């Protein structure tokens, strides 16, 4: 299933685009700002649960695969380039200009943590692409940058067509006898290159046609008007409040110097927290998830917020 927006009746789909943007930014920022793996895991689990509850899991799979691949790559690369930490798992050789190739437990854990951060950010981007109407979002942003937002809308619109064109081109060439999957990587690239060029050429042609159609509807010859603005609803206030709580508590923890470090040796991520510290972000996230869950099952609530 293509990772594109489809209209659905879920809490995230029903949010004002500004609130949806705040929610996605909060989840991503929660993962990026914190050095505490427990906070990061909370943001990651919350994002995945929201994908499920907003019924966009299937559409988001390409994002999740990309996120997982990037996360694993970071987890593998970090111990090879970062040798800090007290607990050496593997003693490696010492290379000129590079130094020691020792692999430490701390570097490995930090790699996993960094991977989780990136995974969460990519998953949140997936939610933005699949659960927030690009038209509404871009209407919102177009007040700041019309042309860029229109280019982004066109990219979203044309992406499925381009995927279909690529599939058609590949199939026609296979039947003509092109060996696209045979041989070494270099041979495969050589066989596929003309197809990519043809696809690129086709996309340019299509772009020219769309530009003509836009011109035929008067685009670019005067000031445009905005026509639709979704009014904020109680659901927006509730989600925005949770986002502020979630992000605020994290910023407060950072400002209070309650950071976490994997080096020189890892400690329990909970030891640095005051008894109340985890309460607020967990509560905020649970409230969002509870709202999303109730939206699907509790008509009374859905009809009132």
């Amino acid at each position, binding site marked *: *299933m293509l990772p*594109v*927006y*489809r*209209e659905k009746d879920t809490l995230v789909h029903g949010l004002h685009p500004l609130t949806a943007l705040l929610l996605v930014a909060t989840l991503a920022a929660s993962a990026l700002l914190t050095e505490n793996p427990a906070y990061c895991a909370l943001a990651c689990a919350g994002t995945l649960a929201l994908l499920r509850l907003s019924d966009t899991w*299937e559409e988001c799979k390409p994002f999740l695969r990309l996120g997982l691949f990037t996360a694993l790559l970071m987890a593998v690369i970090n111990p090879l380039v970062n040798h800090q930490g007290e607990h050496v798992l593997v003693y490696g050789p010492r290379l000129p200009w590079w130094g020691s190739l020792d692999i430490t437990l701390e570097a490995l854990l930090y790699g996993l943590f960094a991977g989780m951060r990136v995974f969460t950010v990519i998953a949140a981007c997936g939610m933005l692409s699949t659960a927030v*109407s*690009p*038209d509404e979002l871009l*209407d919102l942003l177009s007040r700041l940058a019309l042309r860029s937002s*229109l280019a982004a*809308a*066109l990219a*979203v*619109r044309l992406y*499925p*067509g381009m995927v279909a*064109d690529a599939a*058609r*081109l590949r*199939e*026609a*060439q*296979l*039947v*003509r*006898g*092109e*060996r696209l*999957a*045979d041989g070494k990587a270099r041979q495969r690239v050589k066989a596929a290159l*003309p*197809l990519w*060029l*043809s696809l690129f*050429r*086709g996309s340019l*042609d*299509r772009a020219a*046609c*769309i*530009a*003509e*159609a*836009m*011109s*035929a*509807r*008067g*685009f*670019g*010859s*005067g*000031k*445009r*008007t*905005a*026509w*639709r*603005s979704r009014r904020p609803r109680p659901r927006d206030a509730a989600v925005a409040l949770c986002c502020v709580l979630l992000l605020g508590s994290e910023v407060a923890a950072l400002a209070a110097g309650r950071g976490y470090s994997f080096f020189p040796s890892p400690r329990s991520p909970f030891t640095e927290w005051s008894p109340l510290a985890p309460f607020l972000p967990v509560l905020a996230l649970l409230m969002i998830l509870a709202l999303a869950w109730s939206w699907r099952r509790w008509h009374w609530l859905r009809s009132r917020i």
Partner: protein
Amino acid sequence: MALVEIEDLTYWYPRSAEPALRGIDLQVDQGEFVLLTGPTGCGKTTLMRLLNGLIPHFHGGRMAGRVRVEGKDTRKTEPRELARRVGMVFQDAEDQLVTTTVETEIAFGLQNAGLPAATIAKRVEEMLVGLGLSRLRRRFIPELSGGEAQKVALASILALHPAVLVLDEPTSQLDPLSAEELLTLVRRVHEETGTAVVLSEHRLERCYHYATRVVHMGEGRVAFDGPPEEAARWCAEREGDFVPPVARVFVRAGWEEVPLTVNRARVLLRERGFLNGRAPDRMKGLPAEGEGKEGGEAARRGRELARLRGVCFRYPEGAEVLRDVDLLVNAGGHLALVGENGAGKSTLLRCLLGLLKPGRGKVWLLGESPSPRELHRLAPRLAYCPQNPSGFFVADSVRGELLRTLRLRGQDAADGEGLVEERLAAMGLLGLAERDPRDLSAGEREKVMLAAALLPPLPELLVMDEPTRGLDQRSKREILGCLRESGSGGATMLLVTHDVEFAASLAERAAVMGSGSIIVEGPSRGVLGDSLFFSPQVNRLLGDIYPGVMREEEAVRVLQEARKRCGR
């Protein structure tokens, strides 16, 4: 004052020495329905671009003469103002929709026009309700069917309340049902709102009778401008490709009257006492009732080229698309697959070619079980022309494309040049040999694709998906001739098509698909002749007297006979 006035207009595209239009004088008045006809490349699209200011504002170029819309010179009028008065719908919905959902698409032009938000909201709602698009309001545009997308394109133009609606082959990418629906909608808009319509269309049998005026173009000039009946006679006598089949057969049979619809033609025949409920005697050489239903027997005995047995297929995110499909293609038995959009025809072809693996059932293609990795072994014996020729072309020139085909078939490059020259000459493509195939017209692209597919040695099986989509009658006739010649040379065709006229002219056998199954399969005279909507226009005209009449030449002979009997 006319809505649109074109005075002595000649136009050159940028970097072109030859004018695309020469000395055009034309007027479009309020409430007119003008049908533009003419061969591909005659200047219809250029003329339409002039009407709403795309020329010169978007395309540039050089103009002599004048175009006025509601008295204003298009050169001196703002494009957004012109866009509000002259709305234009293009051929392919995929290439003209800009936003991601239906309602935002309808609002796009209104926003560009700078209308107040309340007016935009009202007009969006009006279009959604008026054109029956309400249920699609929030649908993601790439997931709409071709017909739905073209209706959205029409709605987005009508929302601007244009005085003139210009449609450039709006149904060329649609199946017959969606095409009919769209043209009916256009007619409704014309009749209910008085909006002037300028329509360019290849499926003339569907719209000729809607027109109040027909403008026939040739080589950048207006060749004929007059009422449809006169235009039909004029065209049928000179360029018979640009009138509905029913009018063409009457003119070719020497009748004075030129009916534009099957109904009018049948009334005419009845008035002359030819359709009086009694079947006339069998005419020599014409297939009589029942005859031909056993036809294709030779094809049935031919060598097996492709077979599907109990094939079922389901896409990962969808319902079952193929259900227990059994199909056999034997050498010499050209087979046409017809059926509505979404019936599973293209999926069936992809399963047959090994591009999709059936969930259940068996597929044999040229004696093998096909798979994407092994298809190259079948390339010398198999050719495939996909629905969209841009999915076929990879090389930068027509010649390069044909040479590439030979290379992929494993043929010697030294012999290649000669074979390619021969093939290009045989198909009248030598003049286009160095052109990029993607820059050619739809008919020329189809011919290039066929030229590549039919390079000698001829393939045993030629699989075609909608070979006549977007083609005018002349291109269809040329392609039909080329395919018949290849058929006599030993190639067998399997084609998926909505074009029943073409299917009846080419294929001995036909199969109708519906909701993933083969509903009926057999000789095409029997399958296509026994139906109301799957039959060619001439069969609908004469089918109850001569059920076997499927081709125009047969209908002409019947009408000549009828004329004689009626003493006219």
